[in-house]
């Protein structure tokens, strides 16, 4: 059962709100305090990525986040509606290749480095990023 569902328009200003909501629900779900920074950053990265791809492909479409408390885990799924060809495989670090605009590959790399468990489901109609962390208690 989804504990909280949140949809927001593809505006950078809303990403902070999404981070705050996710962190608050994670704390309530019993995620350890030491992991809350990781939840905040990983959810922020997923939402930033979604906002950027929506602004490029479908600025009028909302982004959806589902925050679940299932079987002792806190699970977050961030879903966008943009074609997922922007997700690139991890490449060796090359300063000349890096852009100071959004680095979508970096965002995914950061999420994978932070979340206890991550799955990325790219598709022609959008990408779902599902991540989860251990949670101590139920709802």
């Amino acid at each position, binding site marked *: 059962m989804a504990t909280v569902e949140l949809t927001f328009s593809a505006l950078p200003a809303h990403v902070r709100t999404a981070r705050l909501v996710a962190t608050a629900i994670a704390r309530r779900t019993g995620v350890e305090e030491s992991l809350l920074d990781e939840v905040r950053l990983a959810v922020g990265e997923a939402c930033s990525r979604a*906002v950027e791809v929506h602004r490029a492909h479908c600025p009028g479409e909302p982004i959806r986040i589902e925050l679940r408390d299932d079987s002792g885990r806190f699970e977050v799924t961030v879903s966008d509606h943009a074609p997922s060809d922007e997700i690139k495989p991890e490449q060796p*670090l090359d300063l000349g290749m890096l852009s*100071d605009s*959004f680095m979508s590959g970096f965002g995914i790399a950061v999420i994978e480095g932070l979340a206890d468990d991550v799955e990325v489901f790219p598709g022609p109609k959008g990408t779902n990023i599902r991540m989860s962390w251990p949670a101590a208690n139920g709802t």
Partner: protein
Amino acid sequence: MDLKLDHRTEDRLTIVEVEGEIDVYTAPRLRELLIDLVNKGNFHLLVNMEKVDFLDSTGLGVLVGGLKRVRAHDGSLELVCTQERILKIFRITGLTKVFGIYASVDEAKEAHGKDK
């Protein structure tokens, strides 16, 4: 909290004080400041991150962009950061190898002075 930016020049080093959250919403302001400083001939930048509460990959991108700009002028962009939560994102992305990261502004100034 929002992002607060300030800067000052000491000798040939421009120290950029950053406070608050650097994310997809606020990072453009930091990008504009770094571009403005470089355009005005400040090619040795030290970004003090000690009061940064949050940094994401958008913020990293702005710092990398700043580094590219100053390097085009044989300059430098280095960081002051001791917060584990911020250092972690530099480690995950391998950027600890790209930026000089110091424990204090004084330590960075001393290292910068030795290089000159």
